[in-house]
């Protein structure tokens, strides 16, 4: 469960990225944030995992208020899938997936690179679930295609079965078939694992096909909130209309 209560974010250069957002996203929901570039989707996502601090307002993640004291604890319950994958290219697929447990595994194991056997097995199973082969599992991420790297990113996010999964434009650089696979995986984790999944997207058709709920943003404000069926052509065109046009 994620709850935004009148959240504002103004950056140091004066940009108003988020302007009074109040939103509640329950468990087991695949919520898609739609909007053009600069609408505030990424900022909103990064607030949930504490990477961006709101200027004002209150944010509850897994029913706990996010602040300086709780940030580290909450971050362990939130995983994120990134548009540019953000994997360590020189590390193997296995180690990249295992890095999803970086904050919970004992420090000596992290420094020695000796992850627990059961976690390694889980990483292998997740890789298989994502359609990666054993050979690819032991390869460096740099040797994989964009689609395969994104699957590694998803496996990393799912490793600890977090109650909250965020995805920032996860299919922006992927082909249609891979995009469908990625969004299916996100919907699956919401429905089967009961996770709260929040995903920012540009593609209206993909949002309509996979989301349980669509939140449309424009200029930092929520301008649409409803089911995929409710997002008609007029509403979607309004989301992407250029300012002043």
């Amino acid at each position, binding site marked *: 469960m994620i709850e935004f209560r009148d959240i504002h974010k103004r950056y140091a250069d004066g940009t108003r990225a988020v302007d009074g957002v109040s939103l509640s996203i329950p468990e087991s929901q695949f919520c898609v944030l739609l909007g053009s570039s600069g609408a505030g989707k990424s900022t909103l996502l990064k607030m949930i995992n504490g990477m961006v601090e709101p200027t004002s307002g209150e944010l509850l993640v897994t029913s706990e208020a996010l602040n300086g004291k709780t940030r580290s604890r909450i*971050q362990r319950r939130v995983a994120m899938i*990134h548009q540019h994958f953000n994997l360590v*290219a020189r590390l193997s697929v296995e180690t990249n997936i295992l*890095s999803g447990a*970086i904050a919970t595994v004992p420090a000596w194991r992290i420094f020695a690179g000796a992850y627990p056997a059961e976690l390694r097995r889980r990483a292998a199973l997740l890789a298989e679930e994502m359609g990666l082969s054993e050979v690819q599992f032991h390869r460096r991420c740099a040797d994989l295609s964009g689609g395969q790297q994104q699957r590694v990113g998803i496996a990393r996010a799912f490793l600890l079965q977090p109650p909250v999964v965020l995805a920032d434009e996860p299919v922006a650089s992927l082909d249609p078939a891979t995009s469908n696979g990625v969004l299916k995986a996100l919907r699956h984790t919401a429905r089967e694992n009961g996770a709260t999944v929040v995903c920012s997207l540009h593609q209206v058709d993909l949002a309509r096909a996979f989301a349980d709920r669509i939140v449309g943003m424009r200029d930092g404000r929520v301008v649409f909130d409803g089911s995929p069926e409710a997002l008609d052509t007029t509403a979607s065109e309004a989301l992407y209309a250029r300012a002043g046009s």
Partner: protein
Amino acid sequence: MSPTQQPIPAFHARSAREWSLPPAHGPRFFLTLVIVALLVLWSGRNVEMDRMLVETGGALAHSVGLKEESQVAEGAGALLQAMFPPVFSLETAIDRIDDFDPDRLPLFSRLEVREQLDVEINYETLEQNILVVREEILVQPLGYLVLVLQKMGETLEIGLWGTFIAVLLSLPLAYFSARNYSPNRASYFAARGTVSFFRTIPELISALLLVLAFGFGPIAGVLALGLHCTGFLGKFYAEDIENAERGPQDALRALGAGRLRVLRVAVIPQVLPQYIAYTLYILDRNVRMAAVIGIVGAGGIGQELKGRYDVFDYGHVATILLVLFVTVLLLDHLSARIRARIIR
């Protein structure tokens, strides 16, 4: 106003045939070029580059028979003549060897009897008598080469330990002097200051001072190299940490990981190839420098080199330089192989 300062024209404002295409180099570039040329000329004169060019040219002309006299060519020729052939054998008078046993000679060695003329003075009559003195000499055909190789081994060890100490000190210093990882400004400036301080003191100077503290021998050499190279490695390592790709670091930080964990998982794998390359370069450099700092008594082959140079044993100097050259060549080959294997 230069063309680059003009406001960018609105899109579709005019055809590409009318776009301004500024020249690649403006007057400022040529002015800078002239200033740099003048500075080079002025500074070159200060360090006698003009004389160097004239005398080197003269030596080259002398070597092809275009000039009769050249001090540089003659000096270099005499030195080369004195250095050739390199001396590999070791000759020691047996009366200078403690507990010499003629029945147990070292491997491949032999005894030679040499006659030398000596002058004896009768202090009562002050007459000089010329005597023929027979001296038994132990000749070890490759004895000096073996001694130089042993000294080279010691030099290699000094270089290796100097590099090891530099790596050990540099890693924590790099963490604190990386702007994005240092816990606060005080630790950042303290670490940066320490690294710069180590870099500023040349190892020859610190070796001189450390010889005073630790006495002659390899300790001074190891510490001098270690401290000086900490100044380099600390800076290089820190800059690589700062320039490492941010995406993976942000991704792991967002999972609640602390700085050290993020550094271990997202930064070290990224910077490791560069770290290995720097460290191998420093090792290569330290082995060469270990030979130099030996001159001030900090152990290794440099001490032997200085001793032989001072008594004009240029044949021995040639052997030392030959061994040094071959060692550096081998080390270069070895580090290239290590780089190729580890850095992919």
